[in-house]
């Protein structure tokens, strides 16, 4: 039996605002990435895409700023005054900032669209990748497995595609289908990866079991997203969005729980 005098710092440190951020940043990265692809392949049909992506970035940054208890210290400038390549969030910050810059240039049609698109493909990929990376490095949080390195970019892109599917169904249907299927596959793989992990496997798997219903629901939604992508893009988009958001939120929320506090 374990008891405490005082409480360990085991309270959740990320709140619903953070969960929203994990969705917004995916929308930002995903739309930016799609914008980059369009810029590279069919620059003439770029339209207002850069502005949409830029809006998501702005929204996400606003969210991050607003929820930070350090917001009035404006200490966020340190993200850019320091060189911390080991930190996922540092990459994310630069990824978002540079993507924003590139998107602005693209939106204003300043500079060579293809070159800008090339750079944007890279910076937006960073934005898509860093959340999963930020989670996966935490060896102490078994639910945040290395598989998230793939799962988060995939679901991130999926979230963006779900939004884009409403705006540009024709262009995105195939993408949506593929990304949803990839996400579904990774989701199915996830418990297997957890259970075959290291010392924490049992704990991680047990933790996953507590949320298996969510997973079942998310998987179904992802499946519907893929299945309906070409038949009914609107419903497919809604399903895919819900499935991906659910998945990411649960993993972030549940994964931050301290197993150390109560499990040892």
């Amino acid at each position, binding site marked *: *039996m374990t*008891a405490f*005098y*005082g*409480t360990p710092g085991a309270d959740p440190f990320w709140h619903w605002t953070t969960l929203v951020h994990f969705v917004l940043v995916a929308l930002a990265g995903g739309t930016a990435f799609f914008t980059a692809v369009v810029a590279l392949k069919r620059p003439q049909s770029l339209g207002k895409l850069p502005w949409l992506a830029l809006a998501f970035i702005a929204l996400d940054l606003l969210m991050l700023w607003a929820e930070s*208890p350090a917001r*009035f*210290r*404006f200490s966020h400038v340190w993200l850019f005054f320091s060189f911390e390549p080991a930190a996922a969030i540092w990459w994310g910050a630069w990824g978002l900032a540079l993507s924003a810059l590139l998107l602005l240039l693209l939106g204003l049609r300043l500079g060579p669209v293809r070159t800008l698109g090339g750079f944007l493909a890279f910076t937006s990929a960073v934005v898509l990748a860093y959340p999963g990376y930020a989670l996966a490095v935490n060896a102490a949080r078994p639910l945040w497995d290395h598989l998230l390195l793939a799962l988060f970019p995939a679901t991130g892109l999926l979230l963006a595609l779900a939004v884009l599917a409403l705006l540009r169904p024709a262009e995105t249907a195939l993408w949506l289908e593929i990304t949803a299927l990839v996400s579904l596959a990774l989701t199915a793989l996830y418990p297997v990866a957890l259970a075959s992990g290291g010392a924490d496997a049992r704990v991680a798997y047990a933790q996953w079991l507590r949320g298996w219903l969510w997973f079942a629901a998310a998987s179904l939604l992802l499946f519907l997203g893929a299945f309906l992508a070409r038949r009914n893009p609107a419903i497919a988009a809604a399903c895919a969005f819900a499935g991906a958001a659910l998945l990411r939120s649960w993993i972030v929320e549940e994964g931050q729980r301290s197993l150390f506090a109560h499990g040892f």
Partner: protein
Amino acid sequence: MKLNRRRFLELSAASVGAIAYTGHARALRAPWAVPKKWHEGEVRTVYSFCENCFWKCGISVKVEGGKVRKIDGQKQNPKSRGRLCPRGQAGVAQLYDPDRLKRPLIRIEGSKRGEGKYREASWEEALDYVAERMLKIKERYGPEAVAWFGHGSGDSWFVEYLPAAWGSPNAAKPAVSICTAPRETASQWTFGRPIGGHEPVDWTESRYIVLIGHHIGEDTHNTQLQDFSEALRRGARLVVVDPRFSTAASKAHRWLPIKPGTDLALLLAWIHVLIKEDLYDREYVKKYTVGFEELAVHSNKHTPEWAEKITEIPAETIRAVAREMAAAKPRAVLPPGRHTVWYGDDTQRMRAVYILNALLGNYGVPGGFYLAKPPYLEKYPHPAFPLEPAAGGCSGSSGGGEEVPEGYKPRADKGKFFAKTTAIQELIEPMLSGEPYPIRGLVCYGTNLFHSIPNVPRTKEALGKLDLYVAIDVLPQEHVMWADVILPECTYLERYDDLVGIAHKTPFIELRQPAVEPLWDTKPGWWIARELGLRLGLEKYFPWKDIEEYLDTRLQAIGSSLEEMKQQGTLVQKGRPYLKDWERRRRNPFKTPSGKIELYSKTFAEHGLDPLPDYTPPMPVPSGFYRLLYGRSPVHSFAKTQNNWILMELDPENEVWIHRAEGKKLGLRHGEYVWLENDAGVREGPVRVRLTERIRKDCVYLVHGFGHKGRGLRIARGRGASDNALQTRYVLDPISGGAALRNNFVKVVPGAKRPKLERIARLVRERRI
């Protein structure tokens, strides 16, 4: 909006207005700056001593920006040696507790006691009100009809000075008859010396320590815990006798999970083995004791096999421990413990403890008991009081002279028990019965009537009958909110008190002095006592104008001064700790009739008491019930720290400990809430269940002090259960007057809901604005 704590303190300081806040740049924190820490500011140190329990550790109070920020142990102080227990550390949160009593209150005319309806009053009005009614009582019934209860180091004014000047013998502290009376009485009639407030156990020199109950580690009397740990570090072996696997038991080499209430049988069996196997210290016994022959005969029947049946401790274990302690003698010791009012045979149990120690030859010998000496200190030269100051503290002085001067009455509890120590609980009876004479008024200083004195229904009834009930306290405790007049004292960090002399290996004197000005309209006890004294026509006993003059006079008389004491905090004198130190000076420490340690007590025999301890079984547990045991949380003091947010975050509620198997049998789940109901039908709770292997199956355990119901205690209220509420029965120890509390039985009633309470952090945050 989230504000940090410093901001809270600043805001509350601003709203208080009473204190000039001289903070620097931190006063208004810019949102873009990281708040500075207090230790970056200018810090002043004030020496004083702690009041969070009655151990009185010397403290160094760190004051910065006009506020107390931190309290550390005073390095030069023999009690703290630079260290403090959690309660001592957290005193700051009491000082700045916004729930404190803030100004005098008078119960609204026409309202009943306990309704809690009050109006604010000036000190003038409140004191006049009290004095007028006291004088009326005196006129009608005599001065003895006002009882004085007090506890804490400020109590000297209210159980010694004022009552003696006023002429009431009915002054008492709970620390006697609900705490130490049995061990003090037994010590007085065995060694002719008190144990005293600071148990004179020579821990660090000891090689073998046997704790009977005495849950050191949960009982966090600072110095004792330090010495106990040092002893273990030096390799002392430890045996713990306790029905519960206490913290101390977790450090022990042997744990004896004794059947509750049977310790005396175990002790007698040990005496038996020491004598029968010729393991006792022959020389010591011959030289320093009387009555060994009688003891030897008496102990024939107390075989370990006999004790095994009673205590449920294997005879073999009993023998083994006796042999081990004998092998370590005289550096083997059975410390007296402190809270010794257990089953009603307590003086006899303590006698057995002391007899064992004497057989081990350890009293006045390194590794056993040292001989504590009080420091040299002079009284203030005030005119002689009509009565001798009565109460007697932990040191359990007999409580007032035997002779009653002309025109005065003996204490109302006299004749109820042999030792004539004050028995606070027995002074409640005359409030109800008028026997042997009526008690019509009560002045209650820092004594928790509803949490420290058993049989609360009786106490409430008695309070209802009084003509006057005055409470002097710092918090709106439930019993305080029954008073006719509430006089808010300032806390120990805001006041002077009388000097404190500690009987110790190295006797010493400590000064209490204010670290900051009193908050709100609160006043120190000495001021309240003096103002009241003047109004009661006792001005001749208050020749001093203020406390500085009083203290300086006392200190000058011993060659020091107030100025000097303020600088040094503690004044240490030389002691005479061992028998050899006494013998060198041809002095005899044993103030018994025989001048020796009395294994056999003739005096007891003459008074029809067992001259040698004998076993009597405790009240049996009715079926379906568990015996209710209780003890301390290391983090709390009694029932007075449950509104301290720092301590409450560490330990927010008590739990009822039940053996896992018993819990399963009752269908209980760990962590669920239940009610406790005693055999008189009193229900208490809800309280959380702690299913544990750490307790016997025939008893349950509660930490004392929780279960507050006072509306004004916003943090304490509604958390955990009160042991005292369930202790509607006590057995009077006929020798010491102690109120034995462990004869209450409870059953566990499942199905209570988890109380809906705000998180403590929320309560703290909310109140910052």
